[in-house]
């Protein structure tokens, strides 16, 4: 009997602990996991929203995806943004962080704030601002005309190559500061004596950057790469608000196309939209795994 006493107290504590956890667990199951499972089931269904039924064959939504020219175009667009924009953005962020980490730099608080400021702007607002800047009668064209660099207004958003370029510029403007903050935080953890030692050994700024800063920041770089890949694959606001996916769907992202299938055109093809969402999900997961494998040299 005596032996049982401590275990009862322990038992009670365990029950109390589980009870505390229970509320959060139930909430996360109801609001996070159940919708995901439900969306997964929906991805095998077809028909209108009110009476959906399982497709025949069951993988119908998945198998038709690669035959869907618009989806393939949106896939290519998204990967184009990924391949072009993410490396440029991360490199610029890293260089900026390196510059702003210099202890001798005056007003670096001001500079840091300036670089980070774009991140505080809503995605919709900044997309609309870029849209008006690059409109056919917009500010950019007026400036170029005044400087006599162009003789006719350029239709930035109506031409495939320039429209894609505008989106990439907008993304770099919006997200570089965001990534820079991670790098700056990472750099705080690098001993300053390392740099001093390197300088004594005769390493210049470029060498200390490549041989000290970058290797020591590796975990942070991997995290920003994952976050950027993840964010770019789900790119939505810019495609919708800046270009509307045009011209002729050549700037449309996957998320925008998914949205159009679910809500955009009144067709409400939720099954197909869910299926596409899961394909995006799997892509993000695969890319994240590759990233970790390539980046992680521990073990």
């Amino acid at each position: 009997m005596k032996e049982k006493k401590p275990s009862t107290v322990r038992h009670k504590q365990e029950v109390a602990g589980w009870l505390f956890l229970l509320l959060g667990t139930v909430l996360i199951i109801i609001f996070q996991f159940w919708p995901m499972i439900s969306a997964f089931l929906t991805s095998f269904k077809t028909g209108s929203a009110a009476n959906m039924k399982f497709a025949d064959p069951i993988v119908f939504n998945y198998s038709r995806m690669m035959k869907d020219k618009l989806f393939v175009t949106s896939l290519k667009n998204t990967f184009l943004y990924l391949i072009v924009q993410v490396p440029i953005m991360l490199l610029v962020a890293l260089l900026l962080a390196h510059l702003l980490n210099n202890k001798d730099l005056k007003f670096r608080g001001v500079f840091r704030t300036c670089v980070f400021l774009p991140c505080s702007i809503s995605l919709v607002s900044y997309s609309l601002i870029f849209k008006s800047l690059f409109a056919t009668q917009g500010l950019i064209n007026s400036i170029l005309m005044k400087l006599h660099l162009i003789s006719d207004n350029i239709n930035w958003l109506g031409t495939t190559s320039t429209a894609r370029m505008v989106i990439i510029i907008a993304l770099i403007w919006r997200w570089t500061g965001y990534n820079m903050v991670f790098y700056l935080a990472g750099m705080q953890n690098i001993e300053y004596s390392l740099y001093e030692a390197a300088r004594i050994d005769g390493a210049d700024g470029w060498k200390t950057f490549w041989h000290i800063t970058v290797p020591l920041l590796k975990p942070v770089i991997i995290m920003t790469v994952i976050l950027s890949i993840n964010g770019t694959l789900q790119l939505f606001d810019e495609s919708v608000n800046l270009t509307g996916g045009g011209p002729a769907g050549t700037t449309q992202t996957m998320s925008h196309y998914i949205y159009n299938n679910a809500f955009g055109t009144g067709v409400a093809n939720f099954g197909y939209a869910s299926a596409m969402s899961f394909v995006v999900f799997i892509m993000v997961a695969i890319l994240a795994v590759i990233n970790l494998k390539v980046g992680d040299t521990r073990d």
Partner: protein
Amino acid sequence: MKRKMLSMILAVSVGAMALCGCGSGGDAAKTDAPAEDAGDDAAADAGDDAAADAGDSGEDSGAAVADVSSEGEHELSVYAWDANFNIPALKAAEKAFQAKDPDFKLNIVEQSGSQDVEQAVTLAASSGDYGALPDIVLFQDHYIQKFVADYPDAWQDLEGADINWDDFGEEKLSYSTIGGKHYGAPVDNGTAIFAYRTDILEQCGYTIDDVTGITWDRWLEIAREVKDKTGMALLSMDHSGDDLPYMLMQAEGQSQWKDNTTPDLVGNETFKKVLEVIVQGAKDGTIILANSWSEYTDQTIMGDQVAGVMNGNWIIPTIEQVSDNSGKWALTTIPTLDGSNQGYASNGGSSLYITGNCDKPDLAKDFLAYTFGGGEGSKDTYDAALKDGGVITCCLSAGTSDVYKEGVDFFDGQAIYSDIVEMGGSVPVVQQSDFHYNLRTLVGNAITNTVNGANLDDEIKAAQEQIEFEIAGSQN
């Protein structure tokens, strides 16, 4: 290794969470959406107004969700949008119906755009709970066929309501008549108009009569001359939601559809010629294909880049924004391919529908019949709707009132409202489809690609294949 697995799982779950976050991003964008849709009445306002509306909606919709009910026996609730257009019309109807039922109250729940109403219907249907809907909803006509087919329980038809259906244009009713039953009470008239700047035409030696009832080939000639002499284009359109192909086809009395789900693009000579006209105009610079709705309204129309505007008549308030051009505009019909007839078409326009959630269908039917349906209160309703909101009726008898016969100074004294109501009676009924907006996007893409040098036949074929693919996808 264990740690690695853990970090992988964490990374994936971060991805999953962000993916769920995607939905809320959609909502944020949605509030801005009405300004983008060409067929959208909300967008008929100046860009500024539309932006202001969208800004307001944050507060409005928060209150709206909680208050779609209509407690009292003499109360109805309705979803509508556009404080400068549809809402005044509904207020006018409320006031008119109070003459019959003094206790009557209409609870107007303002939405930021037609799309919000349409999405509310879709969401209510997919959750299986129509209780979230108000008694009556207002939305664009192109949606109702699909909505009734997909969510039959969400609607109550208007059979038994005291509405004289012969008093409305046949074309308008063709949208909302399903299986022989009337579902919608028509509100505004989507009749397309072609407005020209008479002063610009005059500079080139033409009058409004010279551009009435002509062929598109002749129109393109005149447009080139106008472009050479004045630098102005003769037409513009929001190419992100390009309604030109639809309107031009309707003016020919034809459709891009054989039936609801059979597209008629490849081998359709009229369709090809219509696209050739648009492509030619775009290449000549006489038709401006704007990248977005705001570019279309703010820059091409209000920025004085065009000497001609063709769209549903709800575009008139946009034209009227430029007060300097008062008295210089005139309205006429649309050119056609062979020029033997005048072209009549329709674009946009919306109707009121009673939802399955309405437990006072008799009151709702009475209200709609008495006001918008051509009953005793219709004259008061439509006169006030026209004065306060610029909503033009498609009720033929209401269109003969004195208010409608008044000349409009902006159009040099032309009695444009009665002209439009009369034109509305001549719009041919054409085959509609649930996939109207999908095809609109694809045909717009085909035009863009052709202007950029692609072969038109190939593009038409590609559009046909893609729309067939999309139809097959949602019908399996």
